[in-house]
């Protein structure tokens, strides 16, 4: 498992941030054969509504996005249950998706995924819903950890099976 060992925020041109985090540990989740790492990706106290953060999970070839949506989401965490994270590779043909107006949108073929509804494709071509990242919040610190993936990341035969 290759994970970056430095902490750094990079502002990208689309006003989203690339977030590289350290301090991961391996964790096996019930119901999943896969051995996902646990990766700190943000903090619920500093996360602002509709200002997404990007991170890579479960490895650096898999870009993801963390967002506080402002309304209760399926599998959302935090006091408002509105913090969710998703793979940001469109499941249709692997183009990058952008967060806007409560959905992830892919401009290659215009698939759109509802972040409050489990990443479902509510419009477009993607037959597979976009994978939702399993999150855990540390109640004391508010730290948010990515610890698993529901669904298959685009371009992979298994989420942990790329070299």
């Amino acid at each position: 498992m290759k994970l970056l060992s430095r902490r750094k925020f990079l502002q990208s041109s689309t006003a989203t941030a690339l977030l590289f985090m350290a301090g991961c540990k391996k964790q096996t989740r019930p119901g999943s054969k896969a051995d996902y790492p646990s990766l700190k990706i943000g903090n619920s106290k500093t996360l602002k509504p509709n200002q997404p953060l990007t991170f890579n999970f479960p490895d650096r070839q898999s870009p993801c996005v963390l967002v506080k949506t402002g309304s209760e989401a399926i599998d959302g965490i935090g006091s408002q249950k509105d913090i969710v994270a998703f793979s940001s590779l469109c499941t249709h043909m692997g183009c990058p998706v952008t967060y806007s107006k409560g959905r992830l949108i892919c401009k290659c073929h215009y698939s759109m995924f509802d972040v409050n509804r489990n990443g479902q494709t509510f419009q477009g071509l993607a037959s597979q819903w976009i994978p939702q990242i399993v999150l855990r919040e540390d109640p004391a610190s508010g730290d948010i950890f990515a610890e698993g993936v529901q669904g298959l990341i685009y371009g992979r035969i298994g989420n942990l099976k790329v070299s």
Partner: protein
Amino acid sequence: MALFKRKDELPIPPGDAEKYTTVCQYCSAGCGYNVYVWPEDKNGSATANAFGVDLSKQGKLMSGFSYTETMHNVITRKNGKQYNLAVIPAKESRINKGDYSIRGGTNALTAYNPDGYTKKRLKDPLIRRENGFVPISWDDAVEIIATLTKSSIDKYGADSIAMKFYDHGSSGLGFEDNWAAGKFFLSGVKTSYLSIHNRPAYNSETWGTRERGMHELNYDVDDARLADTVVLWGANAYESATILYTEHIMPNLQGGSVADKKKAFDPGEPAAEGHIVIIDPRKNATVAVSQDIAADRVLHIRPNLGTDWILANAIARIIWENRWYDQEFLDKRTDMKTFGEYKQKSLQSGKPLATLLADAERITGVPKTQMQQAAEWMAKPKEGGFKRRTLTLFEKGIIWNMKNYDQVAAIAQLNVLGHNVGRVGTGCGRLGGHQEGYVRPPAPTPGSIHAGGPPKNVDKYITGGGGKIYWVGATDPYLSTPNSQFFRKSVKKRADALLDYLDNGGVPTEVKAYADKVLEAFEKTGGLFMIVQDMYMTHTAADAMMILPAAGWGEAVDTSINCHSRLLRIYDKFMDAPGEALPDWQILARIGNRIKALYETDGNKQMAERFGGMEWKSDAEVFEAGSKEFGDNKVAETEEAKLSPECYVGVTHDMLRKLGNEGIQTPVRRDPATGRLSGTKRRYTHSFASKDGLFKWYGTDPWTGYPAEVAKYQHNATYPFWFTTGRSQHVWQTMYHDRKIPEKYFTLPLPYVEIHPEDAGKLGMKSGDMVDVFNEEGSSTALVYVNDSTKPGLIFGIMYHAKGSMNHLISSYTDPKTTIPWYKGTKVGIRKYTGKPDEAIKTASLLANNDVSL
């Protein structure tokens, strides 16, 4: 917890996995797919596998290879063993180039899996008793139906049998099943009460163009990339023929096909990024996506419901006035003897242009400036005097409009006026719904009212008490027929009356005695014996007396053509049908052969012969038998118009297996010079499909308002809203598969309506509310989506859904010329429920599906 179980790893097919080629079971695009089947315990590796792709590395975007969660399933064969199944979009197909839609991407999920989503398939023939359906053997089912059908013909005549059967390709299973249904019902039973899956009669939806000498499937997918202008008229391509849009129309709009245009066009001819004209009352996703790509090259026209032919004629008049036509083409290729009528009635040459345009603007609600713009984009010659190249695709917004015949004819003529057929980058025809695969003996009604028609309305026959046996194949008219609430109530009443009589005193188990008692019941009750052939228990099947389990896509060999290239391919069998299910051709052959034997026993040679010719041993034999119907296909390329559009004489299953995703384009001809089979890329380059090869002009009717069935709602405050219907990107037809697939039903859990924000504000409604939509035909309950897709005063509803049909609201009006319904227009009232079914709708996304802006 995720809403349903997700996968984070997929099995890999080993190098020696079984490989088949097929075509998607859904829309008119007909995307190519490759199918892999391998034993569950024998996987390949990331670097050595049947895909020939290195799966050890992160896949690159737009690589053309996709293998997602929805493309895998586990099947069980008759040998009891389990196999992995992968259904993968074919990169080598020139139709989809590895692309796929949300429908095709779930092909694998529809495969029968005893532990999977589609486990509730029909597996035995069923007979209805007072306490529900009981399984019976095929032998008994065949014997009962054969005896009863024969008895009914003998006692009441052939018209005592009515049918509604699919006639399309792909999901139903194409040429093979269609030939069998044709032999059985058209040659054998010979009833005149025939109807096609989605409508009340046995007719073409496009007689308006066919009777001009132009079949509606006359273009190639390449034309969508090469056209200067693409016109989508009542055709929501992005949501209902998705891959035609994303792989062919979208690149044209983006400018990605300019280099190809330069190669294909005449020397010196200008080639630029494409324009698109979208004529649709809704600002649907096709409009939104097109505008996001190239707003200045999109013209969106929103006519009032039912008025499109007036608009088409007005645009044609502008083209005429400006002389944006080629007189030499008109003189040589069209019947100028008939042009006078067109000029007088359609172009209204006797009326000053300004008056005509003012009238058209008043009727259609479309500004004159948009008509002018459309005419320029469709027909104004390009710099240097080169003819513009326009591809016009229409679909249900036109076909299922008021006045089917005139709507279709007006659009066909508008395009031929600009010579927009038979040239590179042109064409005029259907976008299509299903794929096609029609081969049958001649229908009893050859054409519209102008050509021996119109055909009989079977819905009205049945609801009016006509017919004794009603045979329904792979369609669910309780949802899909117009005026469906009345239809359902009428059929149910007759079906239940029959059942009550039969069960009174017990049902004989001996077949002849059973048939006699059914005949007695016909006399006493006016009841209806309904037979349904289907894959699933449908809304309609629940009232049938007998249900016959049918095989589906992948469970039998099928051949069909797509709509955008008439590309004939094989849809190979890669798995067994569940239980006792059989392909429709086999079911009909068994019953037909039995009826023949019964007539032979009677010594009735004439009737026995009618049911002859169904002794097929294999699907390949049925395919070949059907080909005889097309006659001789030895014609030169310049004479292709003489061939039937789906002619495949000389093509065999084996040949198609070798051709795989490449296929061959119909009409297939045997070239007289070389003796070899040859496909046809584009039609009507040299002549049209009329006796003299000339295009036949026709003068359309003037505007005289709405038919009585809808006019009664005008100026009635109880029904203030216009109402139209359509499809969604997600679900196919009645959701027969999709109602079982979580990726689909969680998103669209209920039938829905779209309401404009302005109307929603006045009505106090918001997205997620539940409403009752009603008029004097019936009512439908729906979930509300508030978005700007519709116009103020217009409500849109999904046509039908597993949990209800909007066709309850649709009148029984049909075009008197063709018996095609106006499914897409009526008026309604709407009222809100007080509460909300939170549990039922909690999974539904309420976001606007026509907003693609960041």
